[in-house]
Structure formats: structure tokens, C-alpha cells
């Protein structure tokens, strides 16, 4: 689909060209983004593009990688309407939404509450007399804060609020709320809405605030596929609350894919630039070498390159698994959902944390020029970094995975078998791990065999899950409350989840190798897979040593292997990033250009800086001249 879209020439469509965004103010960047989003919608209409995958590539092509104020309209607003509405509601709202006759967003987070949904304070009180809900923001902390597209763009919102009917609170429910007057775009009476101000990146996005004062909406505006409020105010309960897992799994799987993509972009820039930049002497008397020939530079970049590939496979795996079991979900079979939900929560955190740090590593590997906005990496970073927080704060995500791991461990302890990615816990009951005396196991690890390394990661995960579960039990034995015990073990629990996710990534990468038919491609990806696994060990030697999985001597070999792999991968490094196939327009980087003509183009770029608009800057006349005159 991607080539089809690019092939139609949209990538060069003059309508989608623009001045370098780095030189624009926030308001200007917002305006450009709106212009392109609106244009894109019209082109979608014009070309009759409706297939979701095709729309995805079309958006990537037209808008590049920048956030767009319409983003939540297509994803959350439309998606929620599709899933949570009755047939009558679908009939009314879906045509308006799909045709972008209204623009909507999804409004959940409040100033005082994020990840802990039950704490949200916005209220929707049912008034049977008028058959309306009355929406209110009762405190400062209850003001809706952060939703994208809310500040200036949207005229409708799906608002999450605590439902009150017949004097009782029935928990969180979703409501369709019109917020701006159609035609004039002015906020409706009772609605206070605006932009939350500048952020770390996302300049083009109007993240907004929303305050509601006795704002009334008809009863039919509550999304009623599952829970319902009848005209007299009677509340009808939904059947299952697991269904909401589905959407979360979907969104989090997108973040895993985004981790892979963002890290790939940063690697492409840093590795290409490192082949262009020359510095110092490696051998006396010879010309300055490419900085990519320095071991320290390879050590910074190649493990990240391997990580980008690893995450790519993980993202594809989750997406496929989700699609496979979503059929089951529609038929009411929810048995696989809890594990997938637990796994994606952890992997979302694991991959986004790693990619976040990796992008910064890439930037710093570009020396001073990485700090210039022309490198493109600052933009990749600020656009990506919030994913450590949104759609579930990472530490909270890790603890959700841990809850599942502890539950599985408890099942195994009580003699039950567990299945899926946690099935390694079954082995614990058979061979109790004795942290200090497992030397016999150590020699069985073969350091140049990915399959054997998967076993090492498995043993580490098992050991850390067991340690966390035992520490939790010990805390409970001290007669602490359950919540206290959990809190006092949470650092251990996060470590266990990380080890579990790390194992899953190594396992999926290794499994992928056997699917590659081209021998040369398989060879180079095997090297990357080995590098990923061995580098991970070298960065966490404590876990492997303490559990007796590896010996001191093996750790020295691991470090040696890592360095040998760096030299092996070096000749293929540029080819490996070229394979990501990012178009220069999408990379948005002077340092990462495909043609490598870095310095000339940096100069051309700088000349366009706003400070260079006039030969003598106005501040000379305003401040410098008077100062010199006075002295």
C-alpha cells in the first residue's frame, strides 16, 4: 500500500510541501498542520480512498511523521463510536464522523488524574425531567487537560465522566459532547475550552483544556452499546468490562511499532552521519577516519540498530496476535485476552523506554550537530518521548505485567500449569532455582547460539519473577496490608517485568530468523540478533551472575563477543539502515540525507534561519548601538 500511495505521486504533491517547520512559530506550525490535514481529507474524498491500511500510508505520506490535530478524530473518536455505540447512534454519528462533517476528539485525562481512571472527577448527572445529562467540572483538578485537537480544532468530544443517576454514582461512562458552535466555531455557552500552551514538542498539536458548567446534552448522547440509562433514569449494567482491553491492546501495539520506527529513524541519521564525519587519528600519519570506525561509536550505535530490528519484529507479532484473537473476541471468547493485555502493557513500557533512551544516544553520537534542529533527531525525540507516559504511564504498565506474572507464579506454586509466554514458570516447580549453586547450568549456555541465549534470558526472568513473588510473600507475612506489601515490593516487581519483556523480545527476534529465506539476509540478521542478546547480557551482568546463569569467565566472553560483532556488522551498517527505506522528506534531517552531502546543506539550511532575515539584526539598533554610544 505504501508504494501504491507514494507511486501516485502524493509525496511530491506541491500542496503538501511547506517551509521548514523548524523556522516557524507554534501558531504557524499549528496552522500548517491544519492546512495539510484539511487538504488530506479533501484528497481522500476526491480519490475515494477508504481502505484503512491505505489511509494509514496516505497519512504517513502526506503528513510525514508530525502529529496532526485531526489525529484523534480518526483514531480515538471514530474508533470509540464504532465500538461503543448502539445501531441508532451509529446511524446518526458515523456518517458525520467518517465524512469529517464534524471534528471530534477523545477527552479523558484531567488536570489532576491520568492513568488512574477511577479517580476522574468530571460528573454527568441524569435529569429525568428533561431527559438530559448535566455535565460539570466540579473542581480545578477535574478540568480536562491534554487531549489532542481539543484546544482549537474540534467541535465535538467524547467525554469520560462519572455517571450519576437516581442519586447513585455508576462509575465512568462516555458521552458525546458538542463543544463549539457549528458555523462560527465559537465555544458553546457553558463550555470553556482552550490550548494548554507550549510543550516539549508537539508544536502542531492543540492539546487542550475543557471545563463544563451545567452543560446539558440529550440522553441519547451517552454511548449505550454496553451500559444504558433508560428514560426514567434506571441504570442497566454492561455484561463484561474486559472488552475495553481490546482497544487498549490495539493502541499499545501501535506504540511498540512506533518505538521501532522512531528508533530506526534516529539510527538511520546517526549511522549515515557517522560514515560522513571524519575525526582525529586512528593510525598515525593516515587521514582522519570515519567516526564509525571507532569502537566507542560502534558500541553506541550498533546495539541500537539491533534493537530497532528487534522491536520491529515485536510490533509485528503483537499486531498479528491481536488480529488473530480479535476474531475470537467478537465471538465472545476472551480467554487469551488477559495474557495479551498483560504482555502489551509491559512491552509498551519496555520498548518505549528503550527507544526513548536510544534516540538520545543517537543524537549524542552526532556530537554538536545532533543538537541542531537540522539534525532532525530533536524532533524525533520530542515527538516520541511522551509515549513513555501516554496510553498508560510506563511504571504503572510494568506493574500491570508484574501482577499477571505473580498470578501465574502463584498458580504454578499451587500445582497448576500456565500457558503462553509465561510457561517457563512451570519449570520452577521442577527444578528449584538455588541462586548460588547452579554452576552446572552455566556451562550449558552457548554464547554464539541465539536459541541458547533465549534459554539464558528465560532463566533470568524466572529467577527475578520468583524473587519478586517471594519478597512480596515475605512482606505479606509481616502482616502488612496487601497494598502496602505490593508497594514495598514494587521495585522488584518492575525488575521482574523488565526481565520478562526482555526475554520475550529475544525470543521473538530469534524465532524470526528461521523465517528468513534469503541466506545473506538471515546471516546479517543473525548477527544483529546475537548482538542484541549479548549486549543485553553485558548491560545486566549482575542478574546473570547472581542467578548463576553465567560465570565470570563467560561474562568476559560475552563482552569479547559483543566487540567482535561490532566489527562484523560495521561493513553492513549503512546498508542495514538504508533497508529501513526512509525517504529524505520523512527523515527530515540534514545529517541523515541519503546522498550524505551534509555540510553544504547545513549551510543552506542555516541561511534560512529567522535570525538571518536581515543582515543587521534589529536588536543592534535597539540595544547594542545605544549601549556603545553611552560608553
Amino acid at each position, binding site marked *: 500500500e505504501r508504494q501504491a500511495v507514494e507511486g501516485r505521486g502524493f509525496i511530491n504533491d506541491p500542496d503538501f510541501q511547506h517551509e521548514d517547520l523548524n523556522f516557524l*512559530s*507554534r501558531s504557524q506550525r499549528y*496552522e500548517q498542520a*491544519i492546512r495539510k490535514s*484539511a487538504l488530506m481529507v479533501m484528497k481522500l474524498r476526491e480519490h475515494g480512498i477508504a481502505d484503512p491500511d491505505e489511509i494509514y500510508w496516505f497519512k504517513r505520506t502526506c503528513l510525514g511523521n508530525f502529529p496532526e490535530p485531526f489525529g484523534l478524530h480518526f483514531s480515538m473518536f471514530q474508533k470509540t463510536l464504532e465500538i461503543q455505540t448502539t445501531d441508532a447512534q451509529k446511524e446518526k454519528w458515523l456518517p458525520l464522523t467518517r*465524512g469529517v*462533517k*464534524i471534528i471530534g476528539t477523545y477527552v479523558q*485525562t484531567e488536570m489532576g488524574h*491520568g492513568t*488512574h481512571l477511577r*479517580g476522574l472527577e468530571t460528573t454527568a448527572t441524569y435529569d429525568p425531567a428533561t431527559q438530559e445529562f448535566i455535565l460539570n467540572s466540579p473542581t*480545578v483538578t477535574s478540568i480536562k*487537560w*491534554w487531549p489532542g485537537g481539543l*484546544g*482549537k480544532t474540534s467541535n465535538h468530544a467524547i467525554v469520560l465522566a462519572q455517571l450519576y443517576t437516581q442519586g447513585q454514582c455508576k462509575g465512568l461512562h462516555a458521552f458525546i459532547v458538542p463543544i463549539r458552535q*457549528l458555523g462560527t466555531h465559537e465555544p458553546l455557552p457553558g463550555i470553556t475550552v482552550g*490550548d*494548554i500552551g*507550549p510543550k*516539549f514538542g508537539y508544536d502542531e498539536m492543540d492539546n487542550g*483544556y475543557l471545563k463544563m*458548567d451545567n452543560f446539558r446534552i440529550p440522553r441519547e448522547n451517552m454511548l449505550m452499546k454496553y451500559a444504558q440509562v433508560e428514560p426514567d433514569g434506571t441504570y442497566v449494567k454492561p455484561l463484561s468490562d474486559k472488552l475495553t482491553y481490546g482497544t487498549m491492546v490495539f493502541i499499545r501495539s501501535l506504540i511498540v511499532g512506533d518505538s521501532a520506527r522512531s528508533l530506526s529513524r534516529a539510527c538511520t541519521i546517526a549511522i549515515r552521519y557517522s560514515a560522513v564525519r571524519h*575525526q*582525529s587519528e586512528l593510525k598515525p600519519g593516515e587521514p582522519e577516519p570515519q567516526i564509525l570506525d*571507532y*569502537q566507542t561509536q560502534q*558500541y553506541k550505535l550498533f546495539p541500537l540498530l539491533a534493537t530497532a530490528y528487534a522491536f520491529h519484529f515485536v510490533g509485528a507479532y503483537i499486531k498479528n496476535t491481536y488480529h488473530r484473537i480479535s476474531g475470537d473476541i467478537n465471538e465472545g471468547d476472551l480467554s487469551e485476552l488477559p495474557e495479551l493485555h498483560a504482555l502489551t502493557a509491559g512491552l509498551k513500557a519496555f520498548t518505549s523506554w528503550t527507544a526513548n533512551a536510544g534516540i*538520545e544516544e543517537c543524537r*549524542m553520537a552526532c*556530537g554538536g550537530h545532533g*543538537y541542531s*534542529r*537540522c539534525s532532525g533527531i*530533536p524532533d524525533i525525540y520530542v515527538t516520541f*518521548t511522551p509515549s513513555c*507516559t501516554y496510553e498508560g504511564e510506563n511504571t504503572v504498565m510494568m506493574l500491570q505485567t508484574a501482577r499477571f506474572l505473580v498470578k501465574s507464579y502463584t498458580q504454578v506454586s499451587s500445582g497448576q500449569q500456565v500457558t503462553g509466554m509465561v510457561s517457563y514458570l512451570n519449570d520452577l516447580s521442577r527444578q528449584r532455582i538455588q541462586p548460588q549453586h547452579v554452576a552446572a547450568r552455566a556451562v550449558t549456555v552457548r554464547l554464539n547460539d541465539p536459541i541458547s541465549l533465549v534459554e539464558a534470558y528465560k532463566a533470568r526472568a524466572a529467577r527475578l519473577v520468583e524473587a519478586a513473588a517471594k519478597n512480596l510473600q515475605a512482606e505479606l507475612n509481616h502482616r502488612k496490608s496487601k*497494598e502496602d506489601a505490593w*508497594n514495598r515490593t514494587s*521495585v522488584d516487581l518492575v525488575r521482574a517485568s523488565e526481565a520478562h519483556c526482555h526475554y520475550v523480545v529475544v525470543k521473538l527476534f530469534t524465532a524470526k530468523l528461521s523465517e528468513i529465506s534469503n541466506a545473506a539476509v538471515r546471516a546479517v540478521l543473525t548477527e544483529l540478533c546475537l548482538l542484541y542478546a549479548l549486549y543485553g547480557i553485558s548491560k545486566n*551482568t*549482575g542478574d546473570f*551472575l*547472581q*542467578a548463576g546463569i553465567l560465570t565470570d569467565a563467560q*561474562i568476559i566472553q560475552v563482552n569479547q563477543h559483543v566487540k567482535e560483532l561490532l566489527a562484523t556488522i560495521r561493513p553492513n551498517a549503512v546498508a542495514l539502515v538504508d533497508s529501513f527505506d526512509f525517504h529524505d522528506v520523512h527523515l527530515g534531517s540534514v545529517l541523515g540525507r541519503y546522498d550524505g552531502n551534509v555540510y553544504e546543506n*547545513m*549551510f543552506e539550511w*542555516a*541561511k534560512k*534561519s*529567522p*535570525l538571518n532575515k536581515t*543582515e543587521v539584526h534589529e*536588536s543592534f539598533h535597539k*540595544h547594542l548601538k545605544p*549601549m*556603545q554610544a553611552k*560608553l
Partner: protein
Amino acid sequence: MALLEPSKYSQGSVLGSVNPDLASERQTASFSVEELTVWLDGSEEHTQKRRAVVEAIESDPVFSRENQYFQSQNERYEAAVRKAVHLQKKMHEMGWTESGPEFKYIYRAVSGDIAFLLHRVFIRSISVLGSDKQIAKWIPLATQHKLIGSYAQTELGHGTYLQGLETTAVFDITTQEFILNTPKISAMKWWPGDMGRSATHTVVFAQLYINGKCYGVHPFIVQIRSLRDHSLCPGITAGDIGPKMNFENVDNGYLMLQNVRIPRENMLNKFCEVQPDGTYVRQGSQKINYFTMTTVRISLISDEVIIPLMKACTIAIRYSVVRRQSKLKPGEQEAKILDYQTQQEKLLPQLAAAYAFHFINDYLQELFNRGYSEIQKKNFNTLPELHAFSSGFKAMVTQYSTSAVQICLQACGGHGYSSLSGLPSLYTRIIASCIYEGENTILLLQTARFLIKCFRAASAGQPVPPSVTYLAAVKPGKCPAKNKLEFLSPDIYTEAYQHMAARLVRSTAAKLQDLIQSGVKKHDAWNQCTVQLAQAAKAHCHYITVKNFAETVEKLKTEAGIQKIMKHLCDLFALHGIFSNAGVFLHDGYVSGAQMDMITASYLDLLAVIRKDAVPLVDAFDFTDKSLNSALGSYDGQVYQRLYEWAQKSPTNKQISPAYERYLKPLLHNTQSKL
């Protein structure tokens, strides 16, 4: 609902009264915050002086940073120039001088948001590298701001490796001038601050050629803009290098030179001179050049790294007692997020690091002062140690603090990403410190070179500086601690660090030796060991930081409460380092697996202890609200009101965006009437 009356917001009725969640934290402090502040400043007199400077600056509206987050690059630059000019006036009014005791507080008071930072480097380089005659000519012009200077060393294609610079200065005997040229695009000067728009003069580093022979890189004073109308001088192309991640107050610039002629006297010639007949004369020691770099690296640690780290800790910790999330106990109110172990584990080690680095900075200053007095006596023996220490600590402290600030930002949930939290700008500014004044990896390798040399010398029985004698003295052994409490003994953990650092240096030296003996060329062997070398250098700096922290606590003569909490912070800093680098301590069995579990237990226990004093510990840094410039970190903890009021001042809410009329309306058109 009354709380939400708009009129109340605009009057700011809630602001000013301290949020009870923050107030309660201050009532339980185990020590006197004021005494800790005084101790951090050095004396009561210092504290008073600092507060007076901060008060004078902050009460002057010209120095306000309230709108900083809303400003464009152009506006930031103009404001910085205005402030720099105004500061001259202010200093005159207040009777502050550059050599006075107030001076060092000014930069902190303006939060570095000011222009002409490189002007000072220009002055310093002339003072150090210029002859008496040159100093007499240029320094008065510069200090009176009759000219504005910059310092042009880095080129588009060359940074840390100075010998690779490509700009040329060819001596022309007939006219007694140097002819300066930028022979190709990668030779263009790139990055120097103040050079893009402000500077009239700059010190240019160029390869000196006399009669076709190259004599290496030398400094030259070059005028680049007219003193009359600020237009560019003939042969000069200069401008701003465009937007960066931060430092929008600084006009980092580019400079291209085409046959620019300057008189022979413009080469800074304290150490090297070209005589009228073209004879090249070298005088004095070139080693002194190291000393300038050493000075800059040490001075940036405090201003550009430790202070921002302290600010980030203040913001994140105050916010973490105001923010409530989920319930720790059923039926209770939602808990302060600082009560979660995971949140403590994110923030408290960073707080401990801020204190550790404050003390290591004192240590470095002392080392520097001692070295400086030796150098004035023409004794250059301490230079290699000073150079190695300033390089290594610059690298370690900047790298550690950069990730610490990032942790603080991400620990504030979504609101951390709002510019109004103050954290994004702290982060994007501090990260530059990992690159400027020497890229960190290269600096660590310089320290490693020194360590390897000292290790070899010490092993051969030759004398080495006292700070590195341990390298050859440490023998293999086992950590003697028997239970988790014994790991709270500074002797136990300091020795573990010492053992680990010595082992890493020793094993890398052995590896180098092996490679060379097996026939690998010296430079190849070095490159093959660089990953380990950098690790060893970092380990050495980490060890010295722990040791210095422990010694500082040991010597501490102040109230018992402060002594106690400082000891806890020292323990936390040390154990956190072992916990997060477990492998290098476990490796060779110095620390056993069972001991590692004890360390982890002790470490986690400490979090709960320090938690109680977390807010008083950041209050002691004594930052004003204006200096924090953060909606999340203000002293009164009125986070949400501040965020709401401040956001409404955003230009996006005040200016009318044409986006709706121009783009949204046509899109929605024709359909609205039907709804």
C-alpha cells in the same frame, strides 16, 4: 463550584497560600532547612549576598522570564541582548564588579538566560594567550563593551580534534599581515556563541603558514562587523546557524573568511610569535593551554549542571507530594505519588546525586586552587592530574545529571512535558553539556589514558598523585559485610567502589598489554579497548565521588539532624550505584549474590527513610519561584491553579488563529446546516 468562578482565578485567591499537602511535609523536617542552606552556600554571609543578588535581579522586570516559554527564537535572542545590556547598568547601580563576591551569583540569578556569554571567553582567552601589550590594548575595549567578542574554534567539520581544523592564516611578509581563509565548506566556523548576530570581533583559531610551512593551530583576533553600523566587514560571511534544542538566547553563528587581512600584531603571542621577517618563535610552556580548558570545564559543572539538576529535583519532588494518584490503602484518600516506592526509586537517588555533585564540585575547586597556586610558581607537575580529573568529572557529572533531569521530567507524568513545568527547558539545556567543552566519550578516554599511565607507574614503584595510588595497592579479596546494616558503613561501600575501579583499570591495562604483545599495533589495541577504558574512567570518578561524599559527611560539624540526613543521602548515593551496576561488583566475587540481596534491601529501606525529608531537602536549595519558573515546582504547591492561569496566557489562546477561517470552515462547509 465557587472555586471555579473566573473572577477568583484572576485575583489568584488560592495562590499564595501553601497547599496543605506541601505544608505538612515541611512540618516534619528532621533538621533546620535554613542551616542546611547556609552550609551549602558556605557561610551565612554567602547566603545573604546570594539572596540580595537574586532579589535585585528578580525585582527588575527586564530580567523576567515569565514569557520565556512563549517566545520565538528571535524574541528570545532580543530579550537576551536587552538583558545583557541592562545588566551592565544594573551592576553599575548596585556597585557589583566582575571581581566582587556578588558576581558568581549573577549568572544563577538570571538562570543563564542572557547574551554575551562568549564575550567573557573572548576576554579570558586574550588574558591568557595575549602578550602584555595585547592585553593593554584589547581588554579595556572589551570590558567597556566598545566591542563584543566571540571565540571561534569549532568548525563545521571539526570539533574536539583541534589539530584537524582547516581554517588558514598565511603570513605575508611584504605587508606584515596575516591572510585568513576558509578553504572549503567544512572549514567554516560553526557554533561559536554570540557570533551569529552580536559579535564585532572574534578570536579565530587557524593553521598558521609561513613561507609555505604549516606551524599548527594559533589564535588570531579578527574584526568581523563594523563598529559603526554593525554591517559585515569585507571578506566576511557570518550569520546564525538556526534553531537548536535550546540556547535560543544565544546566536550561535557561522563564519566564512575570504582573504581577510589582519595586522601581524593580531596574533595572540604570549607563547608563540611571528617576527616581522617571518621567523617563528615559541616561548614559554604550551601546557598552559590545558589550563584554560580545565578552568572552563570545572566552572561549567556548577552553573550549567548542578544547579539545573537541583532545580529539576525541586520541581519533581514538590510536585510528587501534591499529585495524588490511586489508593495505597482501601478507603483512604488517593496517595501522594511520592509515597510509591517506584516514585521514590526514581527521584531520591537523583536528589542524593545532586548533593554528591555539590560536594565533588567543592573538591574539584580545591584541587584546582591548589594546582593554580603551583602553576603560578611555574610548577606544572599537577597539570596532568588536574586535566584528567576535570575531563573525567565533567563527563561523569554531565552524563549522570542529564539522565537525572530526564528522570525528573518523566516522573511528573503528562504535566512534565508541558513547557510550563520548566522541566523541558532544563533538560534541553543540560543535555548540551555532554557535548560542549569536549565530547564526553573523548574526555573519558583522556582520563583513562592518565589512569593507565598512573597504574603502570605505580606498579613499577614510581610515584603517582595520591588520588590514584589505590590503583596498584588494591588486592583481590572479598567484601567483609555480613548483614544489610553493615552496608551502611562508609568504609564497606567505599572499599567496594575502590576495589571495583581498581579492578577495571587493572584488567583493561592487562588487556591492552596482551593485545600489544600479540602483535597488534598500539593505536589499534587502544581502539579495541576503548569501551572498557571509558568504563574504567567512569568507575574511577564514581569511586572518588562516593569517597568524597563519605569524607565530607565525616568531617561535617553542624547540627546533628543535618549530619544524620547527609549520612543517609551518602549511603543512598553509594548503594544506588552498586544496585544499578551490580554486575561489576559481583564479577570476581568481591560482592557475593547473597550480599547483593542485602545491598538491595538496605537501599530500598533508605528510600523510605529519606522520603520523610525529601521536601525539606529540596527547599534547602533555596530556589525562588521566579528562578524555577515552573507551574509544578513553586513553593506554595498550587500546581493546578498555576497551570490553568498560565496556560491562558499562551499566545495560542490570545491570538486568533486563521486556521479555522482558512481551512476548517471550507472543510466543514455545506454540511453544518443539516445538523
